């Protein structure tokens, strides 16, 4: 009796683990034909931290993958794997793809950095691309986008449209990527509305629907009438909508899932980078680099505006976008003061590179604490 039961449990857990990591090949060819062609095709694998169904981070990488397929068609074969946990499991998964003869492997989460470095050293013939990290090798590039640029633009929209002069910001963790976004957003807000403040609440989660909603509600109760966020769910936006308040999305065009109360969203557009780097690999001109593209390169952009945004705000955003793309001005050019009024960068200067990367400060206008 007992033995039977252990088998049952064993089978159940085995099944669960198997379904946990689903492998999906997006190639319609089947049978022997595919097997023959596979040897000639350039094979690309994507390692995802979540599933494309999140309509956020992973969804955007999935869209980027689709753009590779559209551009290079039958020359490439792409595959992705979902829900790969960061850590030792990631090494195993990445190594498996390298062993199976994939030519290029994209690892799309910060926590895959060391596993990617580890596997890249074992397979010098394979191209590796790691998103958001800082370690490179001869066959390993890193890539990320200047999300702060569209964040600044969305700040202009929020600053123009707030009536209470309090804008809420539901933020995940006090790490440079997030604080940089808050600072850029606040600079945008204060440019058009020097009286407005950006109230920040840390949730200590990337993805926890109930927590993120509660944080947004707390901000709304504190008087915020626009909610911006750096999370992987749309809950803060939904909470704002239910109260009849406005919001700014992130990651992907959240307006299409929540409604027109989402004024706009700073979004990723990885396809711009993916098609370029795959093209280079196909031609044999690929070189290891640390890519940090912005609005100019098209890796980041602002999603289309909600009809609620007035025309003069839209044209302001267009002017500022042109300024950033031309390179004549960037978000962290002075004058910039920190939260306590100390000058970080004077007129004509910009914040030095080290500070810009570490972002261990909040700019003037942020109401929150860096813990």
């Amino acid at each position, binding site marked *: 009796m007992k033995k039977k039961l252990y088998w049952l449990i064993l089978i*159940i857990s085995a099944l669960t683990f198997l379904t946990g990591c689903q492998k999906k090949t997006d190639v319609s060819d089947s049978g022997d034909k595919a097997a023959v062609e596979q040897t000639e095709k350039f094979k690309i694998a994507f390692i995802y931290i979540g599933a494309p169904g999140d309509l956020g981070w992973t969804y955007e990488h999935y869209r980027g993958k689709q753009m590779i397929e559209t551009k290079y068609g039958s020359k490439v074969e792409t595959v992705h794997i979902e829900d790969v946990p960061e850590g030792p499991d990631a090494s195993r998964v990445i190594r498996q793809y390298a062993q199976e003869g994939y030519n290029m492997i994209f690892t799309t989460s910060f926590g895959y950095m060391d596993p990617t470095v580890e596997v890249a050293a074992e397979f010098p013939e394979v191209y590796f691309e790691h998103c958001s990290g800082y370690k490179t090798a001869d066959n390993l590039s890193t890539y990320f986008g200047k999300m702060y640029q569209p964040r600044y633009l969305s700040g202009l929209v929020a600053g123009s449209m707030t009536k209470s002069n309090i804008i809420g910001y539901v933020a995940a963790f006090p790490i440079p990527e997030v604080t940089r976004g808050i600072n850029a957003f606040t600079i945008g807000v204060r440019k058009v509305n020097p009286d407005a403040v950006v109230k920040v609440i840390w949730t*200590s989660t990337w993805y926890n629907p109930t927590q993120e909603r509660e944080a947004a509600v707390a*901000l709304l109760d504190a008087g915020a009438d626009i909610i911006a966020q750096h999370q992987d769910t749309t809950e803060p936006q939904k909470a704002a909508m239910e109260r009849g308040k406005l919001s700014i999305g992130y990651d992907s065009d959240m307006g299409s899932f929540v409604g027109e109360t989402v004024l706009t969203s700073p979004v990723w557009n990885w396809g711009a980078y993916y098609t370029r780097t795959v093209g280079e690999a196909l031609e044999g001109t690929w070189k290891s680099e640390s890519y940090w593209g912005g609005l100019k390169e098209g890796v980041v952009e602002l999603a289309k505006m909600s009809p609620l945004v007035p025309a003069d705000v839209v044209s302001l955003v267009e002017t500022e976008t042109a300024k950033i793309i031309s390179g004549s001005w960037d978000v962290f050019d002075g004058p910039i003061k920190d939260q306590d009024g100390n000058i970080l960068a004077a007129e004509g200067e910009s914040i030095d590179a080290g500070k810009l990367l570490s972002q261990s400060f909040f700019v003037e206008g942020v109401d929150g*604490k860096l813990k």
Partner: protein
Amino acid sequence: MIGLITSLLAITISAGTSLLYATIGEIYTERSGILNLGIEGMMLMGAVTSFAVSYYTNSLFLALLIAMVVTAFMALIHAFLTITMKANQVVSGLSITIFGTGLSSFLGKRLGPESNNFNLYGVNGKNFPDIQVPLVGDWPIFSAILNQDILTYIAYLIIPLAWFFMYKTKKGLNLRAVGENPRTAEAMGINVIRTRYIYTVIGGMFAGIGGAHLALAYTPGWNEHITGGRGWIVIALVIFAMWNPGKAILGTLLFGGINAIQFRLQAAGTDIPASLLNMLPYLVTVLALVLLTVYENYGKRKIGAPSALGKPYMKEDK
């Protein structure tokens, strides 16, 4: 100030409702001697199925019913494994949670409409509206309690009923007897196996309602891992409530409210670290457990866990 208290209380109650249902269910299950660690998985399954049904049929009643049927079935698996097969209750419960977590995210990606790539995430279904009680419903403080959704109103009724049933009826006495000393209970003519089956399944149904409250009222819509660990908080809450449905309300308010308070303290700009507040409910649980043990060792009355909790019941060999 009154306004702040009212809004805090309102969100605390709303956040606590799903916890309350699942906790009361789990208290009943554990009182019969069965530990069910599958609550997290069951809540997730309750959430995903109820949301899918509400999306396609627009019937909240049907949504709730299906969620209860599904989680009752999951509880039945747990009951079969632990009561009939006499398996380790911890292992079986954990399997149910792992299974429910995986299956719920799988279903969330498959049950949606074709227009949304079969995703349930990002679509809007019907949800339980807040109902304001006339006259007193917009008074300060009162409005927090009397401007909630229907499931929360039912929860108000369930707390005293669950307490009354357990302590003042014969069936409740039988239940407690089975959890304390199944052999004696059997000698008294109580069917231990049947009792355990019934209360395990009831516990599962309550977890299903808890999950449905999340997806249909609290954070309307489906998100993967929508529970965010609430199923585990429930396990702690049962201990905190000392297996007494009446005391469960204190725990759910504490656990439900702590998040709301923590975010408001941040918004108000206090210096208390948020992580400290977040661990407070767990700290209180540990403290409650310690006090309980001390009290039981030096006092006379027994108020802690049912004695037969977690132990499979074997009839004597015939």
